[in-house]
């Protein structure tokens, strides 16, 4: 029983929220992107690029906010390659995503050597966002919930705001509806005079920005340095969160919390040394949880009708 409480306490839930944040951010991007009709498996790569440039920005300027901005922008720019390849050049979405993941590994390795003289891990970042804990007056005093949601670091709050914003954006704004139409019925959208291409570009770009932010969170808030391969499959877990969350931001957030929980549990088991089992058994928790989630929940919801389907209109004169 004592062992149980060394693991199951408020700290576990706080860690759950913290560890779900990068997944949530990327998952929001996945929702928008897939709703617009583009499959984006490049998020893993976008996250690693975002993480790297966030670390570079934070290290070179000494200002973590500039680092965050650089991470987001780098993610956005990198994602545009996916947009150009899939939307304009009609490349298979999964192939393009896989290529981008490989390219991201190469790019970060190259710049790593160029900027820091060695591959692997950067120097520690002295000014990082993990030091800023913003307790919201009043709300943070609520037991359990207060510490989970109202006594966190900046990007965690941003992820909450983005979840709410995009839930509203996709349901209530014209652009949001157009993005959804691009994935459900592109021809109809084109008929009413809205460019499917533009909407799909926008969808991919938003996913690039949020995934870049998720990467930045890993490098300059959750830890204080960049390590090659530090995303560790989170881009793919985010994809699973999007699917098990039924292609909507709130659902994706809840699914991300579940994956964050698996991750937090894993860390606690490892650090707590509660059982005499190799620690690696716990490390695989989140991965197994992801498989269970996509296996069990996938039938409950329906993907956008034209997701992954190329859209091509022959223009006159071509």
């Amino acid at each position, binding site marked *: 029983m004592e062992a149980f409480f060394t693991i199951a306490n408020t700290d576990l839930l706080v860690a759950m929220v913290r560890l779900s944040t990068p997944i949530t951010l990327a998952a929001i991007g996945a929702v928008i992107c897939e709703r617009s009709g583009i499959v984006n*498996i490049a998020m893993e790569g976008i996250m690693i690029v975002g993480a790297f440039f966030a670390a570079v920005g934070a290290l070179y300027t000494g200002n973590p906010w500039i680092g965050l901005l650089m991470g987001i922008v780098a993610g956005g720019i990198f994602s545009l*390659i996916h947009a150009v*390849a899939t939307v*304009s*050049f*009609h*490349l298979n979405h*999964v*192939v*393009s995503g*896989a*290529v981008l*993941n*490989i*390219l991201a*590994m*190469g*790019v970060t*390795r*190259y710049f*790593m*050597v*160029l900027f820091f003289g060695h*591959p692997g891990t950067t120097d520690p970042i002295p000014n990082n966002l993990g030091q800023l804990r913003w307790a919201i007056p009043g709300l943070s005093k609520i037991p359990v919930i207060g510490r989970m949601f109202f006594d966190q670091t900046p990007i965690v709050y941003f992820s909450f705001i983005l979840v709410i914003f995009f839930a509203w954006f996709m349901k209530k704004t014209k652009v949001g509806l157009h993005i959804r139409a691009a994935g459900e019925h592109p021809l109809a959208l084109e008929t009413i005079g809205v460019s499917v291409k533009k909407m799909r570009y926008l969808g991919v770009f938003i996913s690039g920005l949020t995934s870049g932010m998720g990467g930045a969170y890993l490098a300059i808030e959750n830890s204080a340095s960049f390590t090659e391969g530090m995303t*560790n*499959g989170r881009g*793919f*877990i985010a*994809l*699973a969160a999007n*699917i098990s969350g039924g292609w909507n931001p709130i659902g994706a957030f809840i699914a991300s919390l579940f994956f964050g929980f698996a991750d937090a549990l894993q860390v606690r088991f490892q650090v707590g040394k509660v059982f005499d089992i*190799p620690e*690696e*058994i716990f*490390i*695989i928790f989140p*991965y*197994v949880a*992801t*498989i269970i989630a*996509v*296996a*069990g929940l*996938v*039938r409950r919801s329906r993907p956008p009708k034209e997701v992954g389907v190329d859209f091509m209109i022959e223009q006159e*004169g*071509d």
Partner: protein
Amino acid sequence: MDIKKLKPVFFIASILMAVIGTTLYMGSYFSGLLFILAAVVLFLAYKWLESGTAALLGLIKAGAQALMVPVFGIAIAIVLGALVMLASNYDPVESYRALFYGAFVQNWHVSVLNAAPLMFTGLSVALAFHAGLFNIGAEGQYYIGAMAATFLGLNLNLPPFLSLILIFVIAGMLASAWNIVPAILKVRTGAHEVITTMMLAHTARYLSPIFIRAHGGDPSTSDHAYVTDQLPEANWLPRFRSFLPEANYRLHVGILIGIAMALLVYYLLYHTRIGFEIRAVGQNKDAARAQGISIGKNIMMALLLAGFLAGLAGVNQVVGLDHKLYENLSAGYGWNGISVALLASSHPIGVIFTALLWGALDAGGQYMARVTDTSNSIVEIIKGIILFLVVAKYIYAYLGNRIRRYRRRKQEAAEGAA
């Protein structure tokens, strides 16, 4: 005498030359190239005897066309890579000289050693692609294959070749079993194999340290921490040294098994019923179903075969090169297998060449980093650019359309003026 009667002679001679040439060339005997050329000439002669001049020219033209995009992509990537080098203050001419000299002459044996596992993982991804599936988790199956090979290699005590065959078959089957869950989920619930195989890849990666500690790599009890005990020599793959005295001592025959496997996969895909069904499912599920081909069965088949092939990459590394299993020493053969397959447009024969190219770029990069100031991470950039330029075939269609439109407009303008 009718020259047509010599047809089988030409064919057999061509095969023989190809086998000798490939073996010599892979063993760093560059004279093997002459045999390979002879094999190509003999094969073309055979084709000419079989189907005449027009068909032969058609064959050559089709081959040249298929090669155009990759060659063009590689050329552009080399130019862009030079620009990146210039931008980072490296000397491109000297770097490239070192890179190519290292990759194809000085350290060709390293290129071959790198290429062997890539060939297996590349074939794995390519085969799954033919069924419309993306085996992105080849890395995980690689680990399972490597672990199984280590376990069997440490414990099997049979006549040498028998145990080697058993290791390849059983370890391959275990790796293919690693893909059972994604396959069943894909068939039953439609869970995307990209996510499930990827998650299982990470799982396998984290299982390997446990395995290594249990087989002699425990840092608290063993003097060789984080690496398993060594396999008995009877369970090692034969080396080129045993029949080519001047070959590098590390060079093992895994590459020949890889090439044989590529030919086998080619035969399976294009000349058997199983391969036909797999390709039918990959190209058009509805049409395949209408023909009475079971979608589920073929998805299962493709994913399991893919797992088997990727597992062999791990076996090849353990029984061929390392003879033990290291912790955290994956060179990403699974991930790079994806590039190799994409670069070859999933054609099994193409995989032979792209795997060699990828292996050579890695080997050349290492050599370049040793003899010049240029960092070998530039190779990663060049690989990325090559991949993108080759994969994005539509770029060329787009550019072609642009040029054609421009010409037409100019012509129309000229006609309008006249």
